[in-house]
């Protein structure tokens, strides 16, 4: 029985990584036939979703097993395992990828973007890296796929080839590689040196191995080294990456890349440090303050952004800080809130970015000040925007309300009333920078320049309606995710 499960587990994990890779290779080979590569792109996403569902179906027995590929360095293997956080991340990423494929095809065609084969190919490779991160069983595997994710998304960010795109991509790559080699790699090597292990283990591996001061430094190295979690001051890559076409911004920088970052933070908090160690030694304090500061400052900066995607980018920085904050507060409630927020924010943010792309496609407008009255011309887009915005703000009956609840509750149970208040202040700021777009869209009169605009093409609008609907549906179904996450072995 157990060996049957482990066989199919092995198969499924390898399939998760191989399916997008093979998709990328096939797209490369068929690069001349546009219709075919679009079909390949969607079918790859569909297959990956199928594989992820079959992993979920394997049930909770699989949680104790590690699948070892081979030893890469000495005795350290490339190894994979399944645990609740990983499945959550994998489901979010692969589910939303399917929706994004349709959106991407519609968007790229409507905006007459070029180099489609390279775009779809790198997208698939990025998703393969995402799956590798989701299922990694030790820090070495995590680091490998983390770097592969950075490298595979670089061509996507610089896709347009304009000077702006090149500069933005340069900042993107510069910050991510500098933090990963300069901080994360050192943290991993230090962990190896002081504990002799890199495996993700229940209860963590650093207990009693380092004095508190050094442990605090190690934790900080991890937090800043995972540049994809966009903790200030290493957050600048996110707004810079907005030069990418919107499907990239939507999936990768609302879902896959940034969630990879916070997922790594969550995993390291739970399985390398362990929440008990963090609470008893208090080494998480500096990062708690850094995350809180990021949360508030990023919201304040978002207020000042006139460019819609830039505003959403800073909003993402702020929301990621929520997840990091929930993780490093290190109580079971806050980690629950953090994990739920990973899912609900992903669905909400991707909708917002989809809307931004739809607005650009339909009217070529990118500035918030130019969107007055557009809601009457593009009702579906703006309705979806409103739903997603309310979800992110955290009001029922939308999914984000649950995660916000658990996050605030987590802060209170951790005796950090100030953090709870900070969450609430940030929520108010969310309202201030997200709602006016919807309000002005519906209630103001459209500007003369918007005269010829109509709703965006079906392939662009349908996905955002689906994800907006998900924000609503998840409010009711989040209970299943909650029950699933209760299986998270925190100690």
């Amino acid at each position, binding site marked *: 029985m157990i060996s049957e499960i482990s066989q199919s587990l092995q198969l499924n994990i390898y399939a998760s990584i191989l399916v997008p890779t093979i998709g990328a290779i096939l797209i490369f080979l068929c690069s001349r036939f546009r219709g075919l590569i679009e079909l390949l792109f969607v079918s790859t996403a569909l297959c990956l979703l199928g594989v992820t569902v079959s992993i979920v179906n394997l049930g909770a027995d699989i949680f104790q097993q590690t699948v070892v590929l081979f030893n890469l360095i*000495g005795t350290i293997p490339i190894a994979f395992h399944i645990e609740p956080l990983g499945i959550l991340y994998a489901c979010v990423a692969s589910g939303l990828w399917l929706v994004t494929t349709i959106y991407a095809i519609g968007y790229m065609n409507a905006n007459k973007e070029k180099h489609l084969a390279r775009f779809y190919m790198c997208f698939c490779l990025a998703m393969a890296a995402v799956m590798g991160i989701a299922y990694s069983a030790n820090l070495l595997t995590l680091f490998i796929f983390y770097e592969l994710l950075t490298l595979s998304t670089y061509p996507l960010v610089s896709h347009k080839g304009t000077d702006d795109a090149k500069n933005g991509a*340069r900042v993107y790559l510069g910050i991510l590689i*500098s933090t990963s080699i300069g901080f994360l*790699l*050192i943290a991993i090597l230090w962990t190896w040196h002081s504990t002799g292990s890199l495996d993700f283990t229940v209860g963590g591996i650093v207990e009693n191995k380092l004095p508190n001061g050094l442990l605090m430094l190690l934790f900080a190295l991890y937090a800043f080294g995972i540049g994809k979690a966009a903790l200030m001051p290493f957050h600048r890559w996110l707004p810079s990456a907005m030069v990418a076409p919107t499907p990239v911004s939507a999936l990768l920088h609302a879902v896959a890349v940034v969630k990879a970052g916070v997922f790594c933070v969550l995993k390291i908090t739970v399985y390398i440090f362990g929440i008990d160690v963090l609470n008893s030694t208090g080494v998480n304090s500096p990062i708690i303050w850094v995350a809180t500061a990021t949360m508030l400052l990023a919201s304040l900066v978002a207020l000042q952004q006139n460019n819609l995607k830039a505003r959403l980018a800073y909003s993402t920085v702020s929301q990621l800080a929520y997840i990091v904050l929930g993780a490093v507060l290190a109580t079971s409630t806050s980690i629950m809130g953090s994990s739920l927020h990973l899912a609900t924010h992903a669905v909400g943010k991707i909708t917002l970015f989809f809307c931004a792309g739809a607005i650009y496609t339909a009217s070529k407008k990118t500035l918030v000040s130019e969107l007055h009255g557009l809601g009457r011309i593009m009702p579906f887009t703006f309705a979806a925007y409103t739903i997603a915005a309310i979800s992110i703000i955290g009001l029922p009956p939308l999914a984000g309300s649950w995660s916000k609840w658990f996050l605030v509750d987590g802060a209170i149970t951790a005796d950090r009333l100030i953090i709870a208040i900070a969450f609430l202040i940030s929520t108010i700021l969310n309202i201030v920078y997200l709602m006016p777009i919807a309000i002005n869209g519906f209630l103001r009169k459209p500007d003369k320049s918007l005269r010829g605009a109509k709703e965006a093409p079906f392939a662009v609008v349908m996905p955002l309606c689906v994800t907006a609907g998900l924000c609503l549906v998840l409010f009711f179904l989040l209970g299943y995710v909650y029950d699933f996450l209760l299986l998270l072995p925190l100690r």
Partner: protein
Amino acid sequence: MIGSHYPILQVVIPLIAAPLCSLLPKNKLPWLFATLVSWITFAVSIVLLVQVRNHGVLSYELGSWPAPWGIQYYIDTIGAFVLVLVSSIASITLLAARELVESEIAKEKHALFYTAFLLCLTGLLGIVATGDAFNVFVFLEISSLSSYALIAMGDNRKALTASYEYLIMGTIGATFILIGIGLLYMQTGTLNMLDLKQRIHEVDSFRSVHAAFAFFTVGICLKLALFPLHHWLPNAYAYAPSVVSIFLAATATKVALYLLYRVFYTIFGFEFSFDTLHLGYILLPLSIIAVIISALTAIFQPDVKRLLAYSSLGQISYMTMGIALETKAGLIASIIHLFNHAFIKGALFMCMACLLSRMHSTALVGLAGAGRRMPWTCAAFVVAGLALIGVPLTSGFISKWYLVVAILEKDWWWLAIIVLITSLLSVVYIWRVIEQMYFREANGKYSNAKEASPVLLVCTWLLVLATIYFGIDNSYPVGMAVEAAEALLK
């Protein structure tokens, strides 16, 4: 019967082939002959490696004169390892050489070019294979003199000055090594390395031995291009013909590093070199300065071959840094990087050769737009560049890992941070080249350049795939490095 003569065959085959090569008529024959010889040499080195792993150290007496009076060839794990490395690089380089030589070197000199190349190969192999100190000097001079000639054959006029500068500095280095050998001979009465190892510590006048140590240090560091004796390297690599750059960048300094291992670990012994005479105190600061300065200088180079040359200086310093740690782990890291870097630099210079063959320029601005026109070449450069930076799944990552772990074992945090920061600097200069290739438009005359020829591409990708392969399955290099380190430290 022939089985027992492999050690000497390793050197004799290219040695005899060299003058034969100069007699060959001027069409493709010299190239074909040289390539075949290099492949035979490679086969011999593989046989030697297998024999060493199965039977332990190989020892061969020339002319059956017994050691220590006769010349003895002594091949242990590190020796066999480096022999395989040098001959494999030579084989791949020569395979790609025909087209490169035809485009860069005057027709009359072709046969002489291959002759000099084979002599250089002989010299390098001889340094590694021999167990006699004076024999080392002989082969060192053979390889050096032939490399001066090879570098001078570059079609840029600066090649002559580069070669001349290398000649002066290289001769000083070789002479210092000779003086060192002479001083030791004077005190111990033997030239055989194993014999020296025993007799050195029974010597009366320790001053001579200390002086010999000093001369060896300076001489070898000159050949190794360790700061501040590095000045000959950038010009020599930049202005030499492509084939020569590829070969020398991948092998010459590695053999010098082997000589360092041999002299300071085998002849003088670990305790004497590091505990008594504190070689580590010399190597460590120089290595640190070298890594930082070479990385910073590389960032501002306008010519890509010079950029890669400065990069080599930094990478060699990582290897000496590993030695300076004075631990077995450090030595292992040094040997692993010796192996990995040879393939990485070979691949990078081979990409430059491809680019030169079509875009006729190795200047940074001259490579604009190459990514579109020569996709395979530039893709190879990207992968090899990532290996140089040390991205996981490439061999460069494995080397960096072992080096930083070895540093952390000594609790030298500051050094680990320096190593990682200089890796970030290498990101900067590699990315400069990649940006030129992919994000600029091709200008002027060479905007209709085509992809490099299939032979060049295959050779380039062979080296690139080697870096990826050894990044994933590194059991052989690491295993051999561990064995070699243990043997050296005994």
